[in-house]
Structures are given as structure tokens and as C-alpha cells.
């Protein structure tokens, strides 16, 4: 046990490493801002925070190496006991409550731990290239790194927490950091507004989450994972309606955090923050918090079904899957018409997260129906997609950051510092960058392919798995409502093929659309390394799956055996016994056809094209460019009627969600707010002022009794003796 205990200790230190580092950066930054060595050697705190994240990454790797493949049943470990006390439950029994900090390790938390620390490290690396070379960030990057580190400790702590209360606390820390980082350019009104919007929208979800947690506390008398997951529903029956309510409320919290319909409005706006922030928070880690929360419900579903309450919680699973389906479809639709490169990625994030939610919905569905084997497969597929998506999307955002950064530099170079009227993020200003940004374009191509699900590339395996599982749930297990997400996901797969391709070709293929785009160079240091690393991670996602990172390929066979098995499963819909299921065969190839062939080809024909004469792209992507040129020549068609139609306009206006919410705010919430403010000012303030002045005068009066005269004191002693005698005598 000795070595294990030490490893557990190291696990618990993980969130505290960044937590202890951030004040250092903040203080040093405050004192040494503007000094040369601070800027060049310590990178305005970037080096310190990179070191801190490096330690986290090493610790995480240690932990993962220790526990990988053995933690399918979670294990909670109390690290620090702070206060322990009893809580009286309504049934007369007591629960011991420990307010200390503990960690909970299972394959879900291990996976997220790795994703978070790995991406945080790379994005920190990227930030040093991105943030420190931007003039606009001068002398305030220490603030960025400090906030970045608190955010990281929030994420790591949330993943490791051993009860829902700590999870919620770290969840809120992330929310706060998200607000700070989105509003990093607070002098820009749009950034300030976006920060406020993100904060308030996620707050709506958090309120529900909090209520859900309170209900859960009421049900179980505890928020400890160990107690809740190990609950015996035979001997201690719980109110299932209440439990369902609580789970749904918690899911609403997840919806807010992960930007799902209908609380999705904040995510696109959040792209106002610096690009590393978008990469880190709004693509790779924080939005996964919602998924993590839903995945955490999994043992509850398994537990209830295992204790004979089969199907009791199926409704919750259906709701989760349907919300996922709707979001996947809607976000993909909106992504069709976006011209801002980061906004496309934002909607793509929403859409892909929705895939994962749907997959989790399927997993929970199977779990509640008492089919833990299938449920584990669905959970594995979802978590694997989370992994693939985080890697790919983190990279895509960093690559887009690289594009934006270089566009910005080029524009700066050309226009000599006049920034007005030029949008470095607008893809209609780009085009033909494949020759100028070789590494970025390759990375972006790999990331897009992974998101689209081009066969054999990272995201393919997991997306295929999710679609297969949700269809399986819909067809074989009588969940008719599940056909809605199943069909929506299938269509969205094709749409993903279109909008991701569209983004790539608009940016990198064709002729440069502006003068700026002609002058772009890939020159910023620090940016390339993370892109290269993540390209390999993205392409080889399946390798990580077979490392039993997720319970996806569940048997412990050799890698090639697993791979072959998996291929058979994915391409031929063949199960373990070698029987081919024709329904799923059709489904598989329909998905592949839609997403990998039809979607990209339409995108190529609209936005593709060869580069400017005489320029050549790097071989890794030149075939893509050439292919798009061929397709465009062959099948180019005019889409202006469609592009100008009402539907396109509606999509451009984001399906009017923002207008609708604005309307609600102005008509409903603002008047209430004004009324409340008035009440607060007149009523509450008045009462509080009254209390204050009242207690002040009471204090003055009571202090006058301390007259200063020793004789009075003596008299009070004598009087006090009498009082004691009187009270005690009177008592008898």
C-alpha cells in the first residue's frame, strides 16, 4: 500500500500546484511589470505558469500510469479531514459528514484529468507565443497567466473532487475565471458584454444545479460520491420522482456550462476573449465540465437499475439525449453561415458536445434499462469522443489563433498600425493561406478531419460509436423518443462534413481574397509546437483508446487485435461473434457517406479552388487544395438564392435566440430588477441602516454603564452576588 498512498497524496496535490502558483505570478507581475527580464525571461509570468503546468502534467502522468485500466469502479479517498459531524436524516438515522477535501478516482476522472492537464500545458505554451507578442497585451499578461492558473486549478479540482459540493465549488471557480478571461480585453465593450452574458447564462444553469444538489442532499443526506454511488436502494428506498427532479436540475446546470440548447447563447460571444482562452475554456476543458457532471450520474443509473428499479430513470436519459440531438443539429445549421473563423469553431464545439451528450444519454438509457454492458460501451464512446474532440478542438482553436495572429500581423505590417475596419477573424478576408501557413494548415486539416469523422482518423471511431449506440437504443430498446436524437445526429454528421470543410477551404484554399491575406507569414515562435503535438494526438486517437484510457475497447488484448476488432465493428457492424447486423451496416455507411463524402464535396464545390499560380502548399495539404480545385471546376453551382433566403438569414441571426432572450430580459427581468432595486434601496437599506444606527446607539448607551468609577464596579459585584443568589434560589 505504501507506494499507492503516496500516489494518492500526489493526486490530491494536483489542483493545488496552480493554485499556489498564481499568487506568485500576480505579485511578481505587480512589482516587476515592464522590467526587461520579467518580459523576456519570465515571459510576464508565462514561464512560471508553464512550469507549474508542467509539474501538473508530470503528476498527472504518474497518476494515470498508476491507475490506468484498473479504476472501472470508482474509489473515493479522503485526503484531508477537516470537520466531521453527524447529520440527522428525516428517517432518524445519521450520516457522518466530512467537510474535508478528498479525491475520487475512476476512469472518467482519470481521462478528464489527463485531457485537462495536457491541454492546459500545451495551451499555456501556445499563450506564450500568442499573448506575449501582441502589443495590446503589454504589461497585463501576468493577469492573464494568473487567471489561467486559477482556472486550471478549478478544472483539475472539479475532476478530482470526491463529492458534489466540492465539484460545485470548483465549478464556480471555473465560472468566475471564465468571466474574467472572456472579459480580458475589458476596455472593449463587446468583450465586457460577452463576459457578462457568459457569466449570467451559466449562472442560470448553476442555480438549477444548486437546487438539484440540495434535493440530492435531501435524498441521500450526503453529497459524497461514495455514499451516493454505493447506495442500497433495497434497504433505503428513495423517492424516485425526487431523484429524477434532482438529476434533471443538475443536467440543466450541465446544459448551461456546456452551452447546449437552450442555454447555448453565451458560447459564440465568448469568442471575444483571447484565442488561448477560447481554445482552453470554450473548447477543450471547461465546456467538458457539464459532460463530466452528466457522466458522474452514471453510477446512480447503474445503481438504481441494479437494485431492481429498472427503467425508473429512463426519462432523464431521454431528455439528455434529445437536448443533445437538438443542439447538434441546430448548432451545425448555424455554423453553415458563419464567416468568423472562431464562431464556426464555437458552433462546431456546441454541436460536438451535443454528440457527447447524446451518447451519454444513450449510456444512461442503457444503464437505467439494466444493460450495463451496452451502457459501458456507450459511455466509453462518449468519453472517447470527449477526448478526441478536446484534442482536435484545442488544436483547431490554436490553429485559428495562429491564423488570426498572422493575419493581424500582416495587416499591421501593411496598414502601419491602423486597425480600424479590418476583421482579422473574418474568413472572407482570407483564402489561399495554405501556402503561407504550412503547419497551421496541416494541423487544421487534421483537426477538421477528426471532427468530421473521416474514417480511421481520431474522431471517426468515437462518433461512429455514438451514432451506433443511440440508434441501437432507439431501435432495439423501444425508446421511440430516442429516434429524434438518432435521426438528428445522423443528419448533423453530414452537416459537420460541410461546415468544417467550408471553414478550411475558405481559409486555406482558393486565391487570397484581400491584400492582407497575401502578406501572411508563419513567423511567431512557440505557436508551432503544440500544433504539431496535437496533430499526432488527433490522428492517432485510437491508440489512446486501446491504452484503456476509456472503457471503449474493453478487452485487454494486444493493440492490433483490438484495432482489427474495432475496424470490423466500425465498418462492418460486426459483433463479437462475427455476425453482421445489416441495419447498422447501412447506418455506418450512410454516416460515412454523408459526413466524409457529400458534405465535403459540397463545401469544395462552393469554397474550394486552387492556390494563386506559382504558390505551392505543403504536401500534406496540397492534395486537398488540388482536389477542391478539381471539384470546384466540375461541380460549381450558384448558391446565392439559398444564401439569401429567409432560412439563411435566420441562421445568421442565430435562430433569433439572442433576440428572444433580449426581449425577455427587457420586458420581464428589467422591470422586476428595477422594482427590486427600489425595494432594496428604500426597504432593505432602510431597515439595515436602522439596525446599524440602533445598535450603535445601544452600544453607546451600554458603554455608558461602564462609568469608570471603581465604586460602581464594586457595587455591581455586590449586586451580581445578589443576582446569582436570587436566580439560583429562585430556580429551586
Amino acid at each position, binding site marked *: 500500500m505504501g507506494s499507492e498512498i503516496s500516489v494518492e497524496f500526489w493526486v490530491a496535490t494536483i489542483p493545488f500546484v496552480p493554485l499556489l502558483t498564481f499568487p506568485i505570478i500576480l505579485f511578481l507581475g505587480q512589482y516587476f511589470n515592464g522590467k526587461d527580464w520579467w518580459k523576456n525571461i519570465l515571459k510576464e509570468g508565462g514561464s512560471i505558469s508553464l512550469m507549474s503546468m508542467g509539474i501538473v502534467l508530470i503528476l498527472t502522468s504518474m497518476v494515470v500510469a498508476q491507475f490506468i485500466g484498473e479504476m472501472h469502479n470508482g474509489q473515493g479517498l479522503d485526503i484531508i479531514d477537516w470537520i466531521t459531524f453527524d447529520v440527522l436524516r428525516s428517517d432518524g438515522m445519521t450520516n457522518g459528514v466530512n467537510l474535508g477535501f478528498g479525491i475520487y478516482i475512476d476512469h472518467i476522472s482519470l481521462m478528464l484529468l489527463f485531457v485537462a492537464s495536457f491541454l492546459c500545458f500545451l495551451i499555456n505554451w501556445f499563450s506564450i507565443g500568442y499573448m506575449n507578442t501582441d502589443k495590446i497585451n503589454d504589461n497585463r499578461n501576468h493577469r492573464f497567466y494568473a487567471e489561467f492558473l486559477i482556472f486550471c486549478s478549478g478544472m483539475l479540482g472539479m475532476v478530482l473532487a470526491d463529492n458534489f459540493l466540492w465539484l460545485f465549488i470548483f465549478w464556480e471557480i471555473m465560472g468566475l475565471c471564465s468571466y474574467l478571461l472572456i472579459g480580458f480585453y475589458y476596455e472593449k465593450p463587446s468583450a465586457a458584454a460577452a463576459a457578462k452574458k457568459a457569466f449570467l447564462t451559466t449562472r442560470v444553469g448553476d442555480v438549477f444545479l444548486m437546487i438539484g444538489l440540495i434535493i440530492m442532499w435531501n435524498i441521500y443526506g450526503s453529497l459524497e460520491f461514495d455514499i451516493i454511488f454505493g447506495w442500497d436502494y433495497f434497504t433505503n428506498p428513495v423517492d424516485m420522482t425526487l431523484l429524477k427532479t434532482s438529476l434533471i436540475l443538475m443536467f440543466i446546470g450541465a446544459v448551461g456550462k456546456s452551452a447546449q440548447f437552450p442555454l447555448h447563447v453565451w458560447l459564440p460571444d465568448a469568442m471575444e476573449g483571447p484565442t488561448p482562452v477560447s481554445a482552453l475554456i470554450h473548447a477543450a476543458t471547461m465546456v467538458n465540465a457539464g459532460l463530466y457532471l452528466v457522466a458522474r450520474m452514471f453510477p446512480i443509473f447503474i445503481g438504481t437499475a441494479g437494485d431492481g428499479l429498472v427503467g425508473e430513470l429512463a426519462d432523464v436519459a431521454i431528455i439528455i439525449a434529445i437536448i443533445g440531438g437538438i443542439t447538434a443539429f441546430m448548432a451545425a445549421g448555424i455554423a453553415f453561415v458563419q464567416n468568423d473563423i472562431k464562431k464556426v469553431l464555437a458552433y462546431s464545439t456546441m454541436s460536438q458536445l451535443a454528440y457527447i451528450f447524446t451518447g451519454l444519454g444513450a449510456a444512461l438509457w442503457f444503464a437505467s434499462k439494466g444493460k450495463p454492458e451496452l451502457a459501458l460501451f456507450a459511455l466509453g464512446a462518449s468519453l472517447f469522443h470527449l477526448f478526441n474532440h478536446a484534442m482536435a478542438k484545442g488544436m483547431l482553436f490554436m490553429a485559428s489563433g495562429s491564423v488570426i495572429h498572422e493575419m493581424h500581423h500582416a495587416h499591421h505590417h501593411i496598414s502601419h498600425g491602423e486597425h480600424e475596419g479590418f476583421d482579422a477573424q473574418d474568413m472572407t478576408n482570407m483564402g489561399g493561406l495554405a501556402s503561407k501557413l504550412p503547419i497551421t494548415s496541416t494541423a487544421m486539416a487534421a483537426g477538421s478531419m477528426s471532427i468530421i469523422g473521416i474514417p480511421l482518423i481520431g474522431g471517426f471511431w468515437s462518433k461512429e460509436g455514438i451514432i451506433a449506440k443511440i440508434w441501437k437504443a432507439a431501435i432495439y430498446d423501444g425508446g421511440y423518443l430516442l429516434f429524434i436524437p438518432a435521426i438528428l445526429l445522423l443528419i448533423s454528421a453530414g452537416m459537420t462534413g460541410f461546415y468544417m470543410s467550408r471553414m478550411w477551404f475558405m481559409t486555406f484554399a482558393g486565391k487570397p481574397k484581400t491584400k492582407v491575406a497575401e502578406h501572411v507569414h508563419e513567423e511567431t515562435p512557440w505557436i508551432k509546437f503544440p500544433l504539431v503535438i496535437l496533430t499526432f494526438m488527433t490522428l492517432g486517437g485510437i491508440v489512446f483508446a486501446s491504452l484503456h484510457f476509456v472503457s471503449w475497447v474493453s478487452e485487454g488484448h494486444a493493440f492490433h487485435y483490438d484495432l482489427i476488432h474495432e475496424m470490423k465493428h466500425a465498418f462492418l457492424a460486426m459483433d463479437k461473434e462475427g455476425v453482421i447486423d445489416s441495419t447498422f451496416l447501412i447506418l455506418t455507411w450512410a454516416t460515412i457517406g454523408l459526413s466524409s463524402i457529400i458534405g465535403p464535396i459540397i463545401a469544395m464545390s462552393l469554397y474550394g479552388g486552387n492556390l494563386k499560380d506559382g504558390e505551392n502548399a505543403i504536401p500534406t495539404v496540397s492534395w486537398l487544395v488540388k482536389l477542391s480545385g478539381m471539384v470546384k471546376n466540375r461541380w460549381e453551382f450558384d448558391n446565392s438564392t439559398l444564401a439569401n433566403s429567409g432560412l439563411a438569414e435566420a441562421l445568421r441571426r442565430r435562430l433569433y435566440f439572442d433576440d428572444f432572450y433580449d426581449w425577455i430580459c427587457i420586458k420581464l427581468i428589467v422591470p422586476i430588477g428595477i422594482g427590486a432595486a427600489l425595494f432594496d434601496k428604500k426597504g432593505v437599506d432602510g431597515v439595515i441602516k436602522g439596525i446599524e444606527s440602533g445598535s450603535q446607539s445601544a452600544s453607546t448607551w451600554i*458603554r455608558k454603564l461602564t*462609568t469608570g*468609577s471603581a465604586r460602581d464596579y*464594586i*457595587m455591581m*459585584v*455586590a449586586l451580581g*452576588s445578589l443576582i446569582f443568589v436570587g436566580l439560583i434560589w429562585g430556580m429551586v
Partner: protein
Amino acid sequence: MIDPSWVAGLGVIIFAIGLWGAFTRKNAIIVLMCIELILNAVNLNFVAGAAHFGDELGWMYAAFAIAIAAAEVAIGLAIFLSLYSKHATISLDGLELLKN
């Protein structure tokens, strides 16, 4: 032999006189004397108790109480002396520098 309850009764009277004097007199030394009266009432009780119960410890309590009273007087007088050197009075009235 005198009945111990008479001795204790005398103690009550002395205690009452002492307490009364302590909060009516304003000369610090007289207050100190009143405190001594209380302590003497205590001694009477101890002695009476010792006689009544035949308990040797009671005598000892009385002896120690006398010693404590002596120490208290010594310290009290020293403190009053420092008061006198600064305030030129040992009246308990008018000591109102510290209040509220």
C-alpha cells in the same frame, strides 16, 4: 464551648459589614480594610467548621487565608502608593480616566 453556629453567625454579620463598607466607602484603604473584614468572616467560618467537624484541614485553611489576606494587603498598599504618587489621592472617586 461556644456553638460553632454562633461563630458562623458572627461571620455573616462581619461579611455583611465588609461588603457594605466596600461599596459605600471611597477611601481605598478603608475599602481594603473592608475586604479584610470579609476575609476574616471567611476565617471564622473555617474555624467554626473545623471545630464542628473536627477536621484538621479547616484550621489550615484559616491559616492560609490569613497569609493570603496579608499578601493581598501588601500588594494593595503598594498599588495604592503608586496611585497616590501619580494622582495625589487614594480616593476611589474621581478615577474616571478610563471609562465607557
